[in-house]
């Protein structure tokens, strides 16, 4: 788009582009954008499917006010934020360790790639069931290992704090590979001659890591951080299957609370407000992240 006046050729190209895009964009508008607007509209109503005689009165922002005074929602939100912070930190640390290890690997890369890709590619439900099984019961493998090393076993899933352990382990196990592979691609893009020059200048391996690897890896780190944070904030499958939010509501996250309010309590109005809050918070997180993702969104190479 160098010239201001659009030629016939350009107009034809634009027309063709739109013709190719309209089915996809129209479908997305229909199945994603419209439902989102509908959720927003529903969230302004009191709509309890169990009490149909109450109708569906417009209540403005009452559902949102209710949410901010709902201890269960505020607690679920705290859980989600802490879960996101802890898992993403661990995933970035382990992911970086994996990437550095794999970058130096001379043989067995194919095996390493399969071992890493599997947890990431498997259904989250499978990851949740496997980690629940590892931590299950008095003689599950985790407790058996504890006993074997002379420590006391515990009912992991029965404790309001300890129930988080398998959840975080499961998430770290499943998502670290994604981070590792992104960072590995970043590492392999770094010019090897930089390290050579630094070595000639007498820089040790730690200095080379801090002065060359980390700064040049920054874009990949930021992308990984953004994708992981957005994903972890929406966590649902893992918690639903692993603990169901329990014991009590000790591991309940916002998506799960919204889901329960919607399809078990059938409070569609209030649940829509909760779902909108999840959306708005994700959206703000995305707005914070996307400018830092320009590397990947920008059309020109």
């Amino acid at each position, binding site marked *: 788009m160098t010239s201001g006046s659009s030629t016939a050729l350009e107009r034809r*190209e*634009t027309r*063709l582009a739109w013709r190719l*895009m309209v*089915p*996809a*964009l129209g*479908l*997305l508008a229909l*199945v*994603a954008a419209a439902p*989102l607007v*509908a*959720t927003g509209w*529903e969230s302004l109503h009191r709509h309890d499917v169990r009490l149909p005689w109450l109708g569906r009165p417009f209540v403005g922002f009452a559902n949102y006010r209710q949410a901010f005074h709902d201890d269960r929602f505020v607690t679920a939100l705290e859980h989600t934020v802490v879960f996101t912070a802890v898992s993403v930190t661990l995933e970035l640390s382990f992911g970086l360790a994996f990437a550095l*290890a794999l970058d*130096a690997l001379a043989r067995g890369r194919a095996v390493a*790639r399969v071992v*890493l*890709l*599997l*947890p990431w590619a*498997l*259904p*989250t*439900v*499978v*990851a949740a*069931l*496997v980690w629940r*099984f*590892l931590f*299950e019961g008095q*003689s*599950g*493998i985790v407790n058996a290992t504890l006993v074997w090393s002379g420590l006391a076993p515990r009912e992991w899933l029965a404790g309001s704090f300890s129930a988080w352990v398998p959840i975080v382990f499961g998430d770290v196990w499943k998502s670290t590979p994604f981070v590792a592979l*992104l960072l590995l691609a*970043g590492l392999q893009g770094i010019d090897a001659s930089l390290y050579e020059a630094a070595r000639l200048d007498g820089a040790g391996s730690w200095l080379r890591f801090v002065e060359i690897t980390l700064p040049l890896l920054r874009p*990949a780190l930021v*992308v990984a951080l953004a*994708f992981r944070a957005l994903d972890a*904030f929406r966590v*649902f499958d893992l918690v*639903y299957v692993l603990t169901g939010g329990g014991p009590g509501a000790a591991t309940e996250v916002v*998506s799960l609370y*919204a*889901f329960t309010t*919607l*399809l078990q309590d059938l409070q*569609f109005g209030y649940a829509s407000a909760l*779902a909108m809050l*999840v*959306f708005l918070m994700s959206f703000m997180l*995305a707005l914070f992240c*996307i400018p830092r993702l320009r590397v*990947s*969104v*920008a*059309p020109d*190479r």
Partner: protein
Amino acid sequence: MIPSRLVRPTATALLLLAWAFPLYWMVTASLTPESQLFETPHIVPRALVFNHYQALFAERRFWMPIRNSLVVAAATTTLAVLVGAPCAYAMARLHFRGKTWLLAAVLAVSMLPQISIVSPLFLVLRVVGLIDTYPGLVVPYVTFALPLVVWLMTGFFRGLPSEIEDAARIDGAGRVRAAIEITLPLAAPAVATTAILTFLYAWNEFLFALSFTVSPERQTVPVAIALFRGQYQIPWGEILAGAVVASVPVIVVVVALQRRIVSGLTSGAVKG
């Protein structure tokens, strides 16, 4: 003491072993008799039995969720690729204004929390009678499958040299013909990779499948294994056997396509 040049390979091997262990344990436990599942565990199993798998297919009729998952994932993939590939081609190859914004909007849809659109989708699917049907899952699945296809295919199309297509156009072929006759065959491997990844996403999906199916006859594989219940206790043997079966297509794809998946995964996100 380990010699220092072996520290890194040893640490790498230990990390990889730790990551592989849960899967090893899942497979081993699925082959362990129920009575021994919660006895003192042995890293190398003492006895291997297939009765959990037998029970899975004979008593729980597990072929039903498998069939449901296959149908829904295949239909979702077909629809998303047919609609998404042309869109990706336009976004990668054609010049028009607002392209960056459109691509960002598509990406934004893929970041949409699923829970934020469950309630209207549920109400609409109920009104039109699509709860508990295949279309009732395929339509919601478009919300994540289509952005994935557009995103991956845009990356692939950008990577193809445009000179070939330009040459065909100089020879008198129209833009569309050049795209179909020159670019499409070149993009075939990319279409295949994209289709397979989309299939896996649909195969793995849980929240929509849980929300929009009611009867056990319509459950997909992840929902079925998540909701397995026993009469007195959790039937861990059958659950893990089901988890292994759910993993089989994923394992096949990962082993066969590992390189392509990694490049697809990283090209979309890092290089762009």
